């Protein structure tokens, strides 16, 4: 076991060193940060979809309180950093619009169907969960397809980008953000049953580590932690290799995105942290002396539903200007109004997804679906 763990540590460090050697120190650092995300999410079993589900179904608010704590910690660092270096750092500031709200709502539905969100799908896949692996493949396709239609969805109606810093000033925006998180926390506590309110030490540790890693991501990359942009870029590169002409795409022909398309993904911050996250989750899974059993067998119709849900997850994350990480976590932590609207819409969708899950995910054998590993 010791040799396996030594090998896993060396594997992670070698990956970061290899990327740093090829693409420069920033890329190497971003792989290390991504490794940290993966180790925390899988190693400490910190998720996003599961906590939303258990609050609704089991009145357990502990993990959601930990999420809010992580976002608050990230906000405490992000607001002053963004104010100190407005040209060098950008927040996850997206516009609120019809397509964005609809996208977040449907994303919320689908994240309960695939047992994971944006980060959760990566973590589940890398830790060997067959549902997560299936969803990841179609998630990449969906993210790419979303880029092709993003302009149309935005054209349905969209407000200007609104930030809490812009409305209330830097200090005021931070206070409103922390106050908003406290208000949501109070609602969660009022919903949760006694004994299911205070996060366990594992979740508190994960929240603190995620806050630190998100801050490091901002300092190193100049942009907040995200997931879906990188997956859409991977899909675009594969589509180009398959003969697609993306020169006519509004999204991929705009300067910033066109540059990403021609450059290596080892220069794209979101791709780098995604790669690190995948490997980090893999290391955390292999670190354990006993590997969890595979998810239970599903009917073929349910596998088709998982694949379709993964596709829709990717598509809707793109038109919603981010997933649970890029919009909810990073959007709120950096003062974007769209992060709050995303949260409300996705939570409503999640409540519907919880009801659809037993209808669409049906075991092929009895007893019912083994829930190996918590939904993220």
């Amino acid at each position, binding site marked *: 076991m010791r040799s396996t763990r030594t090998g896993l540590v060396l594997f992670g460090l070698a990956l970061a060193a290899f990327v740093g*050697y090829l693409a*420069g120190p*920033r890329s190497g650092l971003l792989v290390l940060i991504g490794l940290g995300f993966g180790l925390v999410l899988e190693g400490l079993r910190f998720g996003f979809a599961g906590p939303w589900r258990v609050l609704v179904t089991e009145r357990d608010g502990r993990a959601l309180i930990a999420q809010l704590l992580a976002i608050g910690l990230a906000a405490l660092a992000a607001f002053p950093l963004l104010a100190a*270096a407005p*040209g*060098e*750092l*950008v*927040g*996850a*500031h*997206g516009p609120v619009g019809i397509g964005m709200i609809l996208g977040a709502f449907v994303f919320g539905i689908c994240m309960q169907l695939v047992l994971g969100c944006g980060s959760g799908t990566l973590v589940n896949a*890398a*830790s*060997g969960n*067959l549902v997560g*692996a299936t969803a*990841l493949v179609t998630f990449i396709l969906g993210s790419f397809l979303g880029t092709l239609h*993003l*302009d149309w969805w*935005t054209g349905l109606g969209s407000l*200007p*980008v609104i930030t809490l810093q812009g409305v209330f000033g830097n200090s005021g925006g931070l206070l409103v953000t922390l106050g908003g998180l406290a208000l949501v926390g109070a609602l969660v506590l009022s919903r949760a049953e006694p004994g299911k309110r205070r996060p366990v030490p594992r979740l508190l540790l994960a929240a603190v580590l995620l806050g630190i890693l998100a801050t490091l991501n901002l*300092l*190193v*990359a*100049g*942009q*907040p932690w*995200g997931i879906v*942009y990188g997956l859409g*870029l*991977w899909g675009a*590169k594969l589509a180009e290799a398959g003969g697609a002409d993306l020169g006519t795409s509004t999204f991929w022909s*705009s300067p*910033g*995105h066109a540059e*990403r398309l*021609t450059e290596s*993904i*080892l220069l794209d*911050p*979101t791709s780098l942290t995604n*790669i690190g996250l*995948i*490997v980090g989750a*893999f290391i955390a899974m292999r670190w354990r002396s006993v*590997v969890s059993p*595979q998810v239970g*067998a599903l*009917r*073929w119709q349910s*596998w088709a539903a998982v694949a379709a849900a993964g596709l829709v997850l990717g598509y809707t*994350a793109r038109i919603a*200007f981010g997933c649970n*990480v*890029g919009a909810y976590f*990073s959007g709120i932590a950096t003062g974007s109004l769209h992060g709050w609207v995303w949260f409300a819409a996705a939570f409503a969708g999640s409540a519907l997804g919880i009801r659809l899950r037993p209808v669409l995910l049906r075991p*092929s*054998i009895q007893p019912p679906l083994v829930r190996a590993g918590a939904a993220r």
Partner: protein
Amino acid sequence: MTASAARPGRSAVAAAIIALTAALVAFDLATSEPINPYAAPPPLAFGSGEAAGTAHCAAPTAKAPE
């Protein structure tokens, strides 16, 4: 009608995901513009004096009002 009961274990699926990720990176390195290590950005964006990138999850499109 059921899915095959002989599903791959977690270790096999995880190994396949790592292999696919490695294949993606290899494919990308073979098809993208060569990386110029001498043009690499500074280690930290903060304090670099360089403008932040526009390619991230929340970046508005051309039609989105700024």
